[in-house]
């Protein structure tokens, strides 16, 4: 079993290399060289300065050499320094990562806590009012631009009703709050962004669980369970639901890229200092080392999500687990 997991990991290595290659390719699509761009921020940079920068960033070396150098730096987890403020890129990302990961984990948790019961209820009362509304609502939610939802909520709850804050993670006097007050303040600030972040997840999970549950309920082993005289509750939870939830694990792992993309929008709108907003700012200011690093890390996180989805499935489904071992 462990061997199979490592074999899975090993198969990710060529993907990883491919990712580095694409990242490298993209950045070197720049019409001018990176030195030009950095110098470009300072229009008075002299020719000498440009020459120095070119040498410093090794931009006069052949592309292949640059790629290898970059790979070497990657291996040491050295992403260079930001063009904007000279801070180490990795430090910037590191301070932003926990916030994004935290919010998205909470969003996933909300998706599961609300989506699963909704889906099960819809499956059990198929075709009736709740189910029809849920299905319709999920379909509509899929077509909603998240930035619009954020704006509507902001103007309604934030500006008009003044119920929730619309920006940042903390109130002005946060530092002076007691521990409990700090947590409450954080929660208050996170309410809107979390809602916007969870909405697509909730609708997707509920729709998925509903379909999966309907399918499970039509299976023969459910008939057997009923014929054994088990209570309807036992039939639903021990048999149907257990099977219906198997693919949800994969769904979670595969939602990483979507969550990261969505983070760019709601973090920017709500001024949350996470990875999404960092990426947006770096794109706006053409801060190439950060852009490159974010692109790479985003891809790595997606890769990890896929890998987790894979092993997650093996953990919960004995058929897959044994299939892996036999191979």
């Amino acid at each position, binding site marked *: 079993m462990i061997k199979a997991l490592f074999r899975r990991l090993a198969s990710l290595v*060529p*993907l990883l290399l*491919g*990712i580095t290659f*694409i990242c490298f390719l*993209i*950045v070197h*699509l*720049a*019409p001018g060289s990176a030195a030009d761009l950095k110098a470009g921020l300072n229009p008075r940079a002299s020719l000498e300065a440009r020459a120095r920068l070119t040498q410093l960033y090794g931009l006069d070396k052949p592309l292949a050499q640059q790629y290898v150098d970059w790979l070497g730096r990657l291996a040491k987890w050295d992403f260079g320094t930001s063009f904007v403020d000279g801070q180490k890129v990795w430090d910037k990302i590191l301070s932003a990562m926990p916030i994004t990961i935290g919010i998205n984990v909470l969003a996933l948790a909300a998706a599961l806590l609300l989506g699963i019961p909704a889906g099960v209820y819809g499956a059990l009362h198929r075709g009736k009012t709740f189910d029809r509304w849920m*299905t319709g609502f999920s*379909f*509509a939610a*899929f*077509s*909603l*631009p998240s*930035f*619009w939802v954020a*704006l*509507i909520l*902001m*103007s309604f709850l934030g*500006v*008009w009703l003044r119920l929730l804050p619309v920006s940042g993670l903390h109130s002005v006097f946060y530092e002076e709050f007691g521990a409990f007050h700090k947590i409450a303040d954080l929660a208050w600030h996170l309410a809107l962004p979390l809602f916007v972040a969870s909405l697509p997840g909730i609708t997707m999970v509920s729709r998925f669980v509903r379909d999966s549950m309907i399918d499970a309920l039509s299976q023969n082993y459910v008939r057997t369970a009923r014929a054994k005289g088990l209570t309807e509750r036992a039939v639903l939870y021990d048999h149907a639901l257990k099977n219906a939830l198997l693919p949800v694990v994969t769904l979670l792992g595969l939602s*990483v*890229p*979507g969550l*990261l*993309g*969505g983070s*760019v*929008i709601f973090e*920017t*709108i709500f001024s949350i200092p996470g990875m999404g907003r960092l*990426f*947006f700012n*770096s*794109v*706006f200011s*053409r801060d*190439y080392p950060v*852009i*490159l690093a*974010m*692109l790479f890390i*985003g*891809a790595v996180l*997606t*890769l990890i999500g*896929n890998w987790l989805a894979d092993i997650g499935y093996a953990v919960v489904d004995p058929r897959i687990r044994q299939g892996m071992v036999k191979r």
Partner: protein
Amino acid sequence: MKLSKENRIGRNLALAWLLLVGAAAILWPLYSAKGQAMHFDRVLHAPGSSFLLGSDALGRDLLARLGGGAAVSLSVSVVAVLISVLVGSWLGAWAGLKGGLWDRALSMLIDIFLCFPVFFLILAVIAIVGPGLFNVAVVIGLTSWMGTARLVRAEVMSLKSREFVLASRVLGAGDGWILGRHLLPNALGPIAVNSVLGLSHAILIETGLSFLGLGVQPPTPSWGNLLSDGKSTLGLAWWMTLFPGLAIFFTVLSVNTLGERMMSGLKGRRTT
């Protein structure tokens, strides 16, 4: 296959809305002057007699600008989908037909591309090539070809060993002929459905980019940058936030509705 009454109403509404939006888009050159005219005496007017849907911070007619946004957002999305379908079909067909190394290479390429969060990839490329109508269309197109490629590859692979293809080969047909005449036409159905759904995806991405200021640049209107104006007038001008968003929502919803219909029509059975 009869549609239930509410499904039929939904489909008709979707078609009606898209026709409206399409007309607004095509006719944009006729009223673009109206959309660009600034009236500094009637800045930020609520919807009423002078402006049906209100005016923005520069006194421009929101309704006219929404029409302009339709033209822009639709044309960008259509171009993007065309690019992604062309690139995807070509790559997928080739890999499916040739098999072997070509196929493995394509699958690897697709897998690598899929590792990137789409929005990240698009933003990174925009950072380099710069924003703007054309760039956005091309970038979206070049980052969404994977779905079509997989589909076409699967279709081609399943069809290439069928008898009519073998017969065609015996008669001396080359790869291109076989692809164009026999294989691709069969894949058109799924490709069409994929394109329709790709269209709604493209609209959401373009408007999202424009909203963030990295897509279509003002003064060219896009529903996205109109919404961004809405953000800067939040609390002051509710119409600036509501109407552009509704435009995006209704359009994406209509496209998705038609896409679902097509998909269920294709499968020959009803979806929920």
